[in-house]
Structure formats: C-alpha cells, structure tokens
C-alpha cells in the first residue's frame, strides 16, 4: 500500500488508547522535541531575566539587523509550508512531487543559513563578537544553537531525499512526517527567538 492515510496507520495489538498505538517514529520524535523545548526554554528564560536585570539592553539591541532576521523568518515559515506540501504529496502517492518539495525545504534552509552567516559577518565586522558583553553572548548562543539545529535538519532532509530516490522507499515515507515535526519545531523556536532578540 504505497500511500499511507493522512498519517501512518495506528498499530493494532498494543493495549491502550490512540497514543499507545501511535506510529513509533511520531511518539519518539515528540519525546525528543520535549527535551529540546527545555534547552531553548532555559535559554529564553535566562536571556529574558538577564535582560530585565540589565535594564533591557536597548543600546546593544539596536545593532542587530532586524531586516535580515525578518527575511529569515519568511524563509523559515515558507520552508515549513514546503514540508507540509511534501507530506501531502507523499500521502497522495506522488513521490517525485514529495521529493521536489523536500528539496525546496533544503534549499530554503540553506538560504536561511546563508543569510545568518551574512548577518554574523557584518556584526563581527562591526566588532560585536560573543565576547562583547552579556547580550551578545546570549545572542550568539541562542541564534547559533538554533542555526546548528537548522543545519542538522538540512542534513537529515538531504539523507531522506536521497533515500526516497532509491528502491525500497516505502519504509522511509513515514519519516517525511517525523522529520517534518522536527523542522516545524525548529521553526517554532525561531518564531519566539525573532521578536525577543530583534524586535523589542
């Protein structure tokens, strides 16, 4: 059966409700995302508290490039869209179309990282490195860690894209959804980082 239903079929034979009979990949991914939420949650919490303690860091935050970040937000939101479209295509059995959307997601991710390195380049050129004060330390740690997560997502998506092109791709199809969960999580983290670091 090539096209699974909207989501991977529930596994029968296991005692318990829908959560117990959920596909393994989805349950495992949500547990992993829970622990990731704590990492970024801690960083956001300590950043906000230190910002209150330091009186808002308004001066330092004026040197951050909100335009590139806004464009990056647009890029990341679009990449979330392409992942959902890729998943939809996979569910309709159009594997070639699914792979094209997956490739688009990867490209958007690369654009995001490209713009970020441009952003870092200009800031460092102006002399703002991680060592120039508490705001910059948190700024580079939070955006850098998020960037690493985007890079990890790109690598995983590329491997999945290659795998889907090879024979025996049915087994890998559910992973589009599970990897999509991770990608959407990375997007949600940026949804919170963007206003906190760049806007106000």
């Amino acid at each position, binding site marked *: 059966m090539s096209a699974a239903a909207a989501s991977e079929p529930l596994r029968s034979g296991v005692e318990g409700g829908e959560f117990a009979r959920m596909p393994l990949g989805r349950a495992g991914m949500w547990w992993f995302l829970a622990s990731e939420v704590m990492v970024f949650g801690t960083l956001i919490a*300590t950043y906000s*508290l*230190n910002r*209150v303690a330091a009186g808002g860091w308004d001066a330092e935050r004026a040197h951050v490039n909100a335009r590139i970040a806004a464009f990056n937000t647009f890029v990341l939101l679009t990449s979330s869209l392409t*992942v959902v479209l890729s998943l939809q295509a996979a569910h309709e059995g159009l594997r070639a179309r699914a792979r094209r959307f997956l490739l688009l997601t990867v490209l958007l991710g690369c654009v995001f990282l490209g713009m970020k390195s441009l952003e870092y380049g200009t800031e460092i050129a102006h002399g703002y490195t991680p060592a120039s004060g508490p705001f910059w330390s948190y700024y580079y740690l939070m955006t850098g860690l998020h960037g690493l997560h985007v890079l990890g997502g790109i690598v995983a998506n590329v491997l999945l894209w290659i795998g889907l092109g090879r024979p025996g791709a049915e087994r890998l199809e559910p992973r589009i959804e599970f990897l999509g969960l991770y990608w959407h999580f990375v997007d*949600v983290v940026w949804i919170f980082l963007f*206003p*906190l670091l760049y806007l106000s």
Partner: protein
Amino acid sequence: MQDPAHSGPTPVTIWVWLLVLVVAGLVLLFFEEMSHTTITILLMAIAAVKATLVLRHYMHLKAQPAMLYVIAFTPVLLAVVMALILIPDVAYR
C-alpha cells in the same frame, strides 16, 4: 480515514496567516508611544498564536490524542516555573 488536511484550512492559508502575523509584529514597532514591555508582551502573544497555528495544523496536533499535548506543553510549563523562581536571584540581583 478522512484526510484531516482537506477538511481544515489548506496549508497555504495557514502559511498566509503566519505571514500576516509576522507583518503585524513588524507594524507594531511603529507605535512609538507604547512602552517596551507592552510591545514585548504583544509580540510574545503574536508569537504564541503563530506557534499554535504551526503546532495544530502543520504538526497535526489537532488530530492527535491528548497525551501529545501533555508531552508538548509540560516542558514549556517547567521552563516558565523555572523562570518565575529565578526572578529574585537573576532579575533583581
């Protein structure tokens, strides 16, 4: 099993709503008279709405059992509890 994606709003509409919210956040900055804290709170509210949109529609949380909501929101709750407890020591040191 009816494909929930067809019944609810299509991914593209969700995408459009997300962009509208991003723009709303940017527009918010032009209101000079608002203090920083109110702007931050409003921006966080917008971010929360965007996050809910992504969680419910893109991550299919809408069609998932309640237990997944527990897994998704317990860490958020813990992070908030930690932040509240750290206020006296970090925010007002």
